[in-house]
């Protein structure tokens, strides 16, 4: 017959063994372990180059992005703006529009003597991101390969990052109630593909770039062209580089 003392001893032993048992039953087996990724984060530093002169405002990138990333209608991970620069000296600011983020391109609009051009926009994947700085729980973070991502399972939905982004790249996902933004299609580029917007651009206005790859054409692009980032005075370390960016663009 088991004495009370023995029963307690056995119970105590079992108690001590519990974590070990849990660890045993929850150990990864070869069946459910994910295949080892060949992607090495330390070897990349992602950026994008955009040639304003090549953009025709077709909106392919906006639709492509929305399809690829299930972006809710009315919100934008990428969008295109149409600028009609001011006719000096009568006007002091440009006329800008982006109907539905250019999801359906642009209706024709004529403005005499105006310099017209399209500006595709998306998250600048800043190296010194104001959005990452303000997140109260670190749900928005910078990856070692130079991207700014959001942990949707951790975001409080406080919206401080939306306020902190100078470029208007963030929105609150209406169903998830967490913040959402462009990820440079991380699920694609980490498999060696390009982003959806780059993939579908008919004129090659957008090019995905890896600054850590010495053979990447980005180096020639930055060397040979007058290049600018958006709102450089914000000192965000933006990594979307625009060729032929007009001074009126904000």
């Amino acid at each position: 017959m088991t004495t009370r003392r023995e029963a307690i001893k056995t119970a105590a032993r079992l108690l001590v063994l519990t974590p070990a048992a849990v660890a045993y039953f929850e150990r990864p087996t070869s069946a459910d372990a994910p295949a080892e990724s060949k992607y090495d984060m330390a070897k990349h530093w992602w950026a994008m180059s955009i040639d304003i002169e090549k953009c025709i405002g077709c909106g392919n990138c906006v639709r492509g992005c929305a399809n690829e990333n299930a972006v809710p209608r009315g919100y934008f991970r990428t969008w295109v703006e149409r600028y009609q620069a001011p006719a000096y000296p009568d006007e002091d600011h440009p006329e800008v529009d982006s109907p539905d983020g250019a999801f359906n391109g642009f209706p024709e609009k004529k403005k005499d003597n105006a310099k017209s051009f399209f500006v595709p926009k998306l998250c600048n994947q800043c190296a010194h991101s104001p959005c990452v700085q303000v997140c109260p729980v670190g749900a928005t973070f910078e990856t070692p390969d130079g991207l700014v991502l959001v942990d949707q399972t951790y975001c409080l939905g406080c919206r401080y990052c939306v306020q902190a982004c100078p470029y208007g790249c963030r929105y609150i996902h209406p169903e998830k109630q967490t913040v959402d933004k462009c990820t440079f299609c991380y699920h694609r580029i980490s498999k060696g593909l390009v982003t959806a917007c780059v993939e579908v651009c008919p004129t090659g206005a957008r090019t995905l770039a890896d600054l850590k790859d010495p053979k990447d054409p980005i180096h020639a692009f930055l060397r040979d062209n007058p290049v600018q980032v958006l709102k450089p005075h914000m000192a965000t370390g933006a990594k979307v580089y625009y060729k032929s960016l007009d001074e009126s663009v904000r």
Partner: protein
Amino acid sequence: MEPVTKLVEGFMYPNEVELQWSILIVLYPYITGLVAGAFILASLERVFRVEAVKPTYRLALLTALAFLLVAPLPLQLHLGHPERSFEMFLTPHRSSAMAMFGFVYLWYLAAVLVMEIWLDFRKDIVLLSRTAPSAMRWIYKLLTLGSQNISERSLQIDDRVGYIVTVVGIPSAFLLHGYVGFIFGSVKANPWWSTPLMPIVFLFSAISSGISVVLLIYMAATRLRRQALDMRCLDTMGSYLFYLFVIDFTLEMVDLTHRIYEAGESFQSLDFMVHSRLYFSHIVVQIVLGTLVPLALLGSAQLWRMSEARRKSVYALSGLLIMTGIFAMRWNVVIGGQLFSKSFLGYTTYKLEFATREGLLAAILLMILPFIILWALVKLLPPWTTLAHEAAGGRDGGNT
């Protein structure tokens, strides 16, 4: 998308059309401001020995506590995932001003306000635990935390510790509200917010609104209790309110002048906003009704002799106007800061809903709640002067 775009004038980045921070985020700095202001008023008596405001000392502390308990509620209601808000304590992001809220709040609540109130009311609690009706007696017994010692020596120790807590409390109150200003003032992407003056302006407006709310509660409570108002106390509060509000107004004017003179990149856009969408809440309510009129009223009470009845109306009216004006100031900061595009090329509209999670009804209920809590606190811990207390003598007695 169509109805949304109609709210927009000019050009906004497409994700900017929807406002992120609602009237609940207007309440948050407003309520924490009232807390900080009420506490600073209490410390006037305790630390700076302004004896005249004694009748409001304990009332101010209880008011601060009532509002402080409500302060996190608008934030919780606003969050997309309130159930995750505890993560701010477990894994705070150290570079985030917002992450520090929980810690500053807890510090202020537990280490300063509750501690000071307990020390100050300890003698009353002990006495009530002996004399109160049976059900209440248990509550008071619990509140004594097991100490029935109200000897002269122990009360002296309470007083000494209470003094130290208040001295620590003043910078804490500054921190609590100054940091709320920093949350806005440090957003470099938003020129309407981004100014190092923001925490200081927030602080002085907080003090002004806090003194106003205690003044109004004191006047209303005295009337309800059919007691006579202590005019010396009221006059002193009136003059402090005047001088502090002058500083607040000066700071705001320094900011405004600086913006107009610098006329930076955003100036045209902001100037247009103030003259159009923000005209009523900024120019009419905040500056004229909420600042110039009460300054003139309070100033005239300083300059000219007035009858007691007239002074009472001047103080009551000024207090109401200042509270309204400072609410408008918070509104103009929070809502105004989201009405213009960061491209400086357009404006959106804030549509205040009524019976929604972040609507007007929720805001009204949240503003009523602190008064209900205060009523319960006053019932539990009567802050009023009583003959028994005065007869008891000592600092604690004389103080009440």
